[in-house]
């Protein structure tokens, strides 16, 4: 009986390997089946598809397909004034638009030599951490959702909505905030903001306890997540793995610590790490980061000044020209290193912008590699555990 459940298929006979090293996958042999997971599938993280070839219920080949969402953002921004790039740029990742605002603003400031006031730095830090909180409130329970633990997702979405309320009163918008602009930010905290945020954070404190019972103490979650979707340490540089996915194999890389920006040097935190590199380890790292983000928001609200300048003077945005130059700005989003390569040519429009999103490597080369020999029922779990965001692949 025990052997029945521990049965593993013998993969030594097929698929056979051709002389050139490729797998001999002949669909007409009836040993293999081609299956498309997505783009219209509730388990897929956004607008992408994975074409898998299965033998029994094991995956022998996997290929990521993107292009369902391509709107040519980088190309469009090349034909627009510096300030006109913002409404386009923030759509490169819906879940955390504030990081797009930050890296675009910081690139322009870096090339123009603009320093921003201290108050604006604090407010930017707060906005970025709120964006991380929103993202993690979706991702942490979302991992449970892939194992049919849907309740946590409902809780998370409710709390995410409360943070959207705070964003709305801070910026006037719920999804695309357009709060961070070259030179600073658009506004100070509204009256009573801190108290209302604290009420929300208390609810999240309770959510953190509940989600631990629902997911991390749950035998189903453990059985499905431990030892599945393992990332090896030597893959980290080979595939360009960053953020929580790298920290889950014991490599402590965090842009906020390694290349401090804004006010992160004045905040007390240590990025959580794990060592096993499986789905459970990545979920644990994100769970710890969720707790840490709540703490960081409390620290920021306690340490930031009440009032101050929020914007440095900038040239007239309709006639702004930047001398020829290039720069690279990076920040730590909830998915890892989120950077922008920005080139100017002396005109009033950028010559080239190139977003470096973590999903570009995670969902393409890494996912295709990880899915081989995985069970078909784990496809969504592995994909969600990499925290894929397709828009940043096909900017």
């Amino acid at each position, binding site marked *: 009986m025990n052997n029945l459940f521990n049965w593993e298929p013998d993969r030594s006979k097929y698929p056979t390997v051709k002389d050139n090293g490729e797998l001999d996958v002949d669909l007409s042999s009836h040993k293999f089946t081609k299956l498309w997971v997505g783009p219209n599938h509730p388990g897929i993280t956004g607008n992408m598809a994975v074409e898998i070839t299965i033998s029994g219920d094991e995956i022998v080949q996997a290929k990521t397909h993107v292009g369902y969402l391509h709107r040519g953002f980088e190309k469009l921004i090349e034909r627009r004034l510096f300030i006109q790039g913002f409404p386009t740029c923030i759509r490169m990742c819906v879940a955390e638009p504030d990081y797009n605002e930050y890296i675009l603003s910081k690139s322009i400031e870096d090339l123009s030599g603009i320093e921003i006031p201290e108050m604006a730095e604090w407010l930017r830090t707060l906005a970025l951490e709120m964006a991380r909180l929103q993202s993690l409130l979706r991702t942490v329970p979302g991992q449970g959702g892939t194992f049919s633990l849907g309740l946590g997702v409902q809780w998370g979405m409710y709390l995410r909505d409360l943070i959207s309320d705070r964003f709305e009163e801070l910026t006037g918008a719920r999804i695309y905030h357009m709060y961070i602009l070259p030179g600073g930010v658009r506004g100070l905290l509204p009256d009573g903001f801190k108290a209302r945020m604290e009420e929300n954070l208390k609810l999240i404190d309770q959510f953190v306890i509940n989600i631990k019972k629902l997911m991390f103490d749950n035998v189903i979650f453990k059985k499905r997540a431990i030892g599945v979707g393992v990332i090896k340490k030597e893959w980290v540089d080979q595939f*360009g793995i960053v953020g929580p996915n790298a920290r889950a194999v014991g490599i402590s890389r965090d842009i906020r610590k390694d290349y401090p920006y804004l006010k992160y040097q004045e905040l007390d935190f240590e990025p959580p790490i794990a060592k096993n590199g499986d789905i459970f380890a990545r979920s644990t790292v994100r769970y710890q980061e969720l707790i840490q983000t709540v703490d960081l928001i409390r620290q920021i609200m306690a340490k930031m000044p009440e009032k101050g300048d929020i914007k440095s003077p900038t040239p007239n945005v309709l006639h702004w020209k930047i001398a020829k130059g290039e720069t690279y700005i990076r920040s730590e989003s909830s998915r890892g290193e989120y950077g922008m390569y920005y080139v100017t040519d002396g005109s009033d429009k950028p010559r*080239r912008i190139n977003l470096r999103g973590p999903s570009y490597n995670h969902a*393409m080369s890494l996912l295709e590699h990880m899915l081989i020999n995985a069970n078909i029922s784990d496809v969504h779990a592995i994909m969600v555990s990499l925290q894929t965001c397709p828009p940043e692949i096909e900017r």
Partner: protein
Amino acid sequence: MKDLLERLNTKYNLTDIKYQRDNLVFLTIGKENTIDLVTHLRDYEGFTHFVLLSCVDWIEEGKFQLTYFLNQPERKYDIAIRTMIDRDNAEMVSAHHLWRQITTYQRELREMYGINFPGSPGVDENFILEGWDDIPPMRREFDTKQYSEDTFFPREGRKTHDPASYMKEKLYPTEPTTDKVNKTDE
């Protein structure tokens, strides 16, 4: 960082060295030595994290600028290596053997700029575009506005206005509105 550049300068012919920040330097090297330099930095100087591979189209000079962006995680350095290649029959030596992720970058550059990387796995496969038969869309001469007008216009019942003249007409009509009202009354 300066020690490193001095060491590299003895071996390679580096030009246009520019410090954007203390830990970020841009430099240019000839096409034939680029992959050699990238390999050297990875194997001997600890630049193990490949950040991105990008292309800038300098159409006026007839050149593409390829930028290999490398990071040294221990010392927190960044080096961006620029190399200029001809726009006509654009081709570059593939670097897919150095980092697995480079395959994706090269596939994208093949599709978006038409740069060939012979030997790079799957470089000719569609990445984002499907059934595209126009010039590579990220090249400067590709006009997105013209493309959308040719592809999506004219559509019956749809018309467009010049925003400036349309607003002017709406806000400051040539004939006063009251006259129009009076005329219709009559």
